């Protein structure tokens, strides 16, 4: 819903998923920079959102048997959607989504080999829920605003990643390039800063980075897990030479003993993470995600982010605080300047239309039709963003999700309109635009929306009329072009 302050609405759309009344209450009276701190220093808010699952007053989940988000992927998806709707730490979920797109690990490839239970655990196990390390998404959420170099190392050792990019099969006798290539092309500095020979050297660096299976104590599938292990016998101990400096020194990682060879991987990951070109590439992605997809990144923004990134030792929290306070982020010309992702669209629609009596399970299939299944990015490069979200079929899927939700929320919406909000069609439209936050409509579009309210008979504001027109208007707004931007 609208706060009355367009900049704050913008902050909620970009650093979160839109604002509910409770969200606005949490930042009431704060200055803008204090509101930014509220988002960025999210550990100051409790992380109690999982305990709300299943309670009245929150969006529902639908479980088939016991709700098991650590071992059932559909439940894991529902849990994440629930968290996006209700977390008191919206930027934590937003950054997890950003990194999910950046690191592009897909559940289906992992589960296709290890099975659904272990596959779900590798993606989404909540620490302590079942034995074994936390899942990939949990890692992204826990480390979303940590130092990028720490995040990169954690991802390189993450069991899901070791399965997804085949690192577990990378040995000194037959190096395997999949991770070594993507860590440079996609996860750090991108094409143009390395050559093929660097890919082959990188593959050798990560030989021996592998997994160990731990069987379930009671032969129960959920007890079993896999964890990272460095297998020194499979490591290529010879020197590896690159076309760029390692740790700021020479271009060569020296020959090392097998036992100490894991340091090769740390050396390369740190060299990549610390490099200003990695900062520039991340800055470009952060520009598109947080500032604008419509205008090319301002070089001053890229250099500003790079400076903060380098001087802070790759600290993403410092980077995000810089971005959200920057003149580019706060420029009203950049409000509604990004095409929303399907999960953003769905979560914001739920937050703004209402959720009592609605289950996020109902959003799963529509999200697939919109082109974004959580934990299933189409490639390791993530989803295609921007205009690519807007095929005709995907646009209809957005509109039809909004129709389903508006129909589901018919009586909640109708009841929420006070007598004053029902006086005339323009009162109803004003009321709806306090609840929903599309980009501003032009006057002819406003006339069209009022025309819909007036169509079909004289305006009375009766319960019957409002219970038809409120969901119809909510659907029109959620299906409008203006509502597809954040």
């Amino acid at each position, binding site marked *: 819903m609208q706060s009355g302050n367009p900049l704050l609405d913008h902050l909620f759309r970009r650093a979160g998923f839109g604002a509910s009344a409770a969200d606005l209450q949490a930042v009431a009276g704060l200055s803008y920079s204090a509101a930014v701190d509220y988002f960025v220093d999210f550990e100051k808010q409790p992380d109690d959102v999982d305990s709300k699952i299943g309670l009245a007053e929150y969006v529902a989940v639908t479980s088939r048997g016991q709700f098991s988000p650590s071992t059932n992927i559909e439940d894991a998806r529902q849990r994440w959607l629930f968290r996006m709707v209700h977390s008191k730490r919206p930027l934590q979920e937003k950054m997890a989504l950003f990194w999910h797109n950046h690191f592009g690990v897909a559940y289906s490839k992992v589960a296709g080999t290890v099975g659904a239970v272990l596959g779900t655990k590798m993606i989404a196990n909540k620490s302590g829920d079942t034995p074994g390390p936390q899942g990939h998404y949990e890692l992204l959420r826990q480390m979303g605003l940590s130092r990028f170099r720490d995040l990169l190392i954690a991802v390189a050792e993450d069991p899901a990643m070791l399965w997804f990019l085949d690192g577990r099969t990378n040995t000194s006798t037959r190096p395997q390039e999949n991770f070594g290539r993507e860590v440079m092309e996609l996860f750090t500095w991108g094409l143009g800063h390395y050559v093929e020979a660097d890919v082959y050297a990188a593959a050798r660096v990560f030989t021996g980075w592998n997994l160990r299976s731990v069987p379930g104590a009671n032969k129960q599938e959920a007890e079993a897990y896999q964890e990272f292990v460095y297998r020194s016998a499979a490591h290529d101990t010879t020197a590896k030479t690159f076309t760029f400096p390692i740790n700021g020194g020479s271009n060569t990682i020296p020959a090392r003993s097998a036992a100490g060879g894991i340091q090769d991987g740390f050396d390369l990951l740190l060299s990549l993470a610390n490099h200003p070109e990695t900062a520039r590439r991340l800055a470009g992605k952060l520009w598109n995600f947080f500032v604008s997809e419509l205008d090319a990144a301002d070089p001053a923004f890229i250099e500003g982010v790079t400076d903060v990134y380098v001087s802070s030792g790759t600290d993403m929290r410092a980077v995000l605080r810089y971005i959200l306070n920057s003149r580019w982020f706060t420029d009203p010309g950049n409000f509604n300047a990004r095409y929303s992702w399907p999960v953003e669209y769905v979560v914001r629609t739920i937050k703004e239309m209402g959720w009592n009596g609605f289950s996020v399970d109902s959003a799963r299939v529509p999200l697939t039709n919109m082109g974004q299944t959580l934990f299933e990015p189409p490639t390791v490069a993530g989803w*295609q963003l921007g205009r690519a979200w*807007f095929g005709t079929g995907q646009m209809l899927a957005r509109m039809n999700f909004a129709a389903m939700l508006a129909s589901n929320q018919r009586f909640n919406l109708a009841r929420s309109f006070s007598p004053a909000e029902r006086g005339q069609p323009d009162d109803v439209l004003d009321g709806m635009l306090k609840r929903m936050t599309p980009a501003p409509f032009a006057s002819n579009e406003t006339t069209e929306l009022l025309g819909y309210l007036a169509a079909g008979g004289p305006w009375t504001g009766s319960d019957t009329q409002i219970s038809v027109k409120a969901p119809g208007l909510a659907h029109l707004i959620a299906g409008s*072009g203006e509502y597809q*931007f954040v």
Partner: protein
Amino acid sequence: MATRVTRREFIREGVAAFTLSFAAPAFLVDIARAQGARSRNLVVIYLAGGNDALSTLVPYTDPFYYSRRPGIAVPAAQVLQIGTDASGKALGLHPRLTGLQAIFNQGNLAIIQRAGYLNSSRSHFHGTDIWGTANPNDSGGPGWLGRYLDTLPSPIDPLAGWNTSGATYRALTGNKLSLPSITDPRNYSFASPNSGADAIDERNSAVRLASMAGSERPNLAFVNATATAAFATLDRVGSVVGYQPTVTYPNNGFAQALRTVAGSIVGGIGTRVYWVQTGGFDTHSGQGNAGGGDYADLMTTVGDSLLAFYSDLRNQGLLDSTLMIGFSEFGRRISENGSQGTDHGAGGLMMAIGGPVRGGIYGTAADLNPRPDNSTLENAGGDVTYETDFRSIYATVLDGWVGADSTVILGGNFRTNAPAFI
């Protein structure tokens, strides 16, 4: 303009909603017909992930094929023999490609070996963009199919192309039109939360709202144009839902997409270019050989699905009006890695299937001996070097099939040395 309104009730999440389906404006349908509705269809098939060409078309007499692929080579006794290439080298299809062998034996499958380009990118994403734009030097612009559709007379029917995948590829983006992405016609509807007269009022408002943003708001206009294109194509796409094919298609996404394409072609809804893809070709591990493994499953999907589509069209007399072109973003490394898989390589293969195709094996196989003077290999003998520029295949398709000028669309003359596969 008048629109016909029909209603179809459905229940979703226990809530009744109405699907409003309405015909495209008459002028668009006329345009579709005028633009040659059923005359010539182009179906582009993308094998996503970098297809291991040496496992598709097996050089089973090359000793280095076996010495460099001890774990994943297809045994010579198991390949489906289809003869020799121009250099006299015997080649065979993967044993799971019985479907393609049947098409080959009918003379309607052309395999173009070693298709690619100079300095092949080993990146999936860069490589796919290069194949999409047909421009190895600048792969950031609109794609070759989008540029072709841009040349159609205005206004261009929004259903002139149909992307059956959920993703948008650079090949499909144009300056005027991007191919609509329609993964499942059954979901291609417009629902209202209300019913009866209000639903119609609401739908009419949605149609008008989508027409309002002008060029001063280009990004909003883009989204609204997508909505408008959706509204204008609902009926034609919906007409495909009830399609009754003449054969049973395999139960996989690739085959089901081809079945939808067949329904669209048979229904004559005016689409000219289709994009169909199937993934899983990034076989870094567990590739297997003839007996099983990931690659064998991929070949089953490809061969059986394409044979079903081919047979369905043939049964309905539409084979002569359909050309399929298959490609992947690169071939794979010659030597297997330690994971019974292969890493990213260079030259790959292309396929052409259909009534107009002159079947056969085109080009010459690489010699897989990694000796320094072997000009068929590159990357220190690691990868297959391209022989046929993939743009010459595009040029043949554009000039010889869809009736466009390839030099305009490809920005140069790539007709030289093009294999005469149609």
